[in-house]
């Protein structure tokens, strides 16, 4: 049983109940996150879910079941990664066919899994806090009004940028129609659809113009065969003096992770080589390893300028 009262948090209570009933070994995550991040985490999570699912508890149930599979898939791969020290070999085209262009996989497992992980995974929630505490104030102080989110995923960060910075106009890019439709649902639910465009567009072969004041690129690089080439492409999208937040998964295998980052230092070095000025960086773990030599999913973040 949960140790915290979820009486006034019906969406989180629904997730907690489904986890207890269908995957009891995952149910402790609610108490764990509350224990580390407190009532602010709980209130924000409830508000997010209430807005996004708009009272549709059946959709929330399906999303939670997708999260269960997403989390299990990642944990299984993490254990196999411990044995080999490398991601399962895959080309971008293979990953795209298996994941990004697979509408059923995207909508039933991958996208709901990622969305809920923003609150249920320690390192993802810390990334969100860092975004709010470190990136958003810099963006507000800058005063620019144009913004590119490259690789929108669930639309979480596109939505957050628009929500937190009134007057900003956003343009989201992705190669997956499923990601764009999920993002459409996300920004519509938060009343932000009229402040952004969503584009099925490869920014390397068809770069948008003019360069934007701000960009975000959240957990895209590890999905690529050549992240440095991609970072060089991103660099061209940022106006001089602009600001970007770029993140990458580190030692975190997934069905579509190709490029293995070993630390935030590698991301910092690549960002610099691509022409960015690195203003700040950090790395966070999903949890503490229990055994020596046990790998742990981590997250690397850089705030960059140009």
């Amino acid at each position, binding site marked *: 049983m949960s140790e915290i009262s979820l009486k006034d948090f019906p969406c989180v209570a629904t997730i907690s109940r489904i986890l*207890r*009933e*269908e*995957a*009891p*070994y*995952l*149910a*402790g*995550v609610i108490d764990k996150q509350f224990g580390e991040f407190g009532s602010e985490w709980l209130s924000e999570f409830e508000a997010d879910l209430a807005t996004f699912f708009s009272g549709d508890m059946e959709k929330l149930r399906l999303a939670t*079941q997708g999260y*269960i*599979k997403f*989390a*299990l*898939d990642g*944990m*299984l791969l*993490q*254990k196999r990664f411990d044995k080999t020290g490398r991601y399962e070999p895959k080309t971008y085209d293979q990953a795209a066919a298996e994941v990004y262009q697979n509408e059923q996989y995207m909508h039933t497992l991958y996208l709901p899994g990622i969305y809920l992980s923003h609150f249920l995974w320690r390192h993802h929630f810390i990334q969100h806090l860092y975004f709010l505490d470190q990136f958003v104030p810099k963006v507000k102080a800058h005063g620019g009004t144009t913004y590119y989110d490259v690789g929108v995923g669930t639309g979480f960060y596109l939505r957050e940028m628009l929500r937190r910075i009134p007057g900003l106009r956003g343009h989201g890019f992705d190669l997956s129609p499923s990601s764009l439709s999920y993002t459409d649902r996300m920004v519509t639910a938060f009343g932000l659809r009229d402040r952004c465009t969503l584009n099925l567009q490869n920014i390397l072969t068809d770069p948008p113009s003019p360069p934007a004041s701000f960009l975000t690129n959240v957990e895209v690089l590890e999905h690529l065969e050549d992240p440095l080439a991609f970072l060089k492409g991103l660099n061209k999208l940022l106006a001089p003096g602009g600001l970007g937040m770029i993140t990458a998964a580190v030692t975190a295998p997934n069905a579509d992770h190709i490029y293995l980052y070993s630390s935030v230092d590698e991301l910092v070095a690549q960002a610099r080589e691509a022409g960015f000025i690195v203003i700040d960086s950090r790395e966070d773990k999903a*949890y503490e390893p*229990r055994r020596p030599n046990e790998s742990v999913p981590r997250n690397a973040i850089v705030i960059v300028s140009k």
Partner: protein
Amino acid sequence: MDVLSTMTTVFRRVFDDESIKLADATTAQDIPGWDSLTHINLIIEIEDEFGLKFTVDDIAGLKNVGEMVAMVERKLAAKRQDA
């Protein structure tokens, strides 16, 4: 092969607790320390013990030990058929 008794051996090893007794209805709420990380360690140890490889679909719906045993028995039967 008695899957439940082999699985009991695996559980005792993973939890380092010789007193564990499994029943079909046993869930993660019945065994202290059965969280997500221990669960995945169990899954990997069961794979190794029975010479099987599980997919996420195999393991996602498992709510108790009885369902784990049934899944392993299904996979073993399929493996015998393929051999």
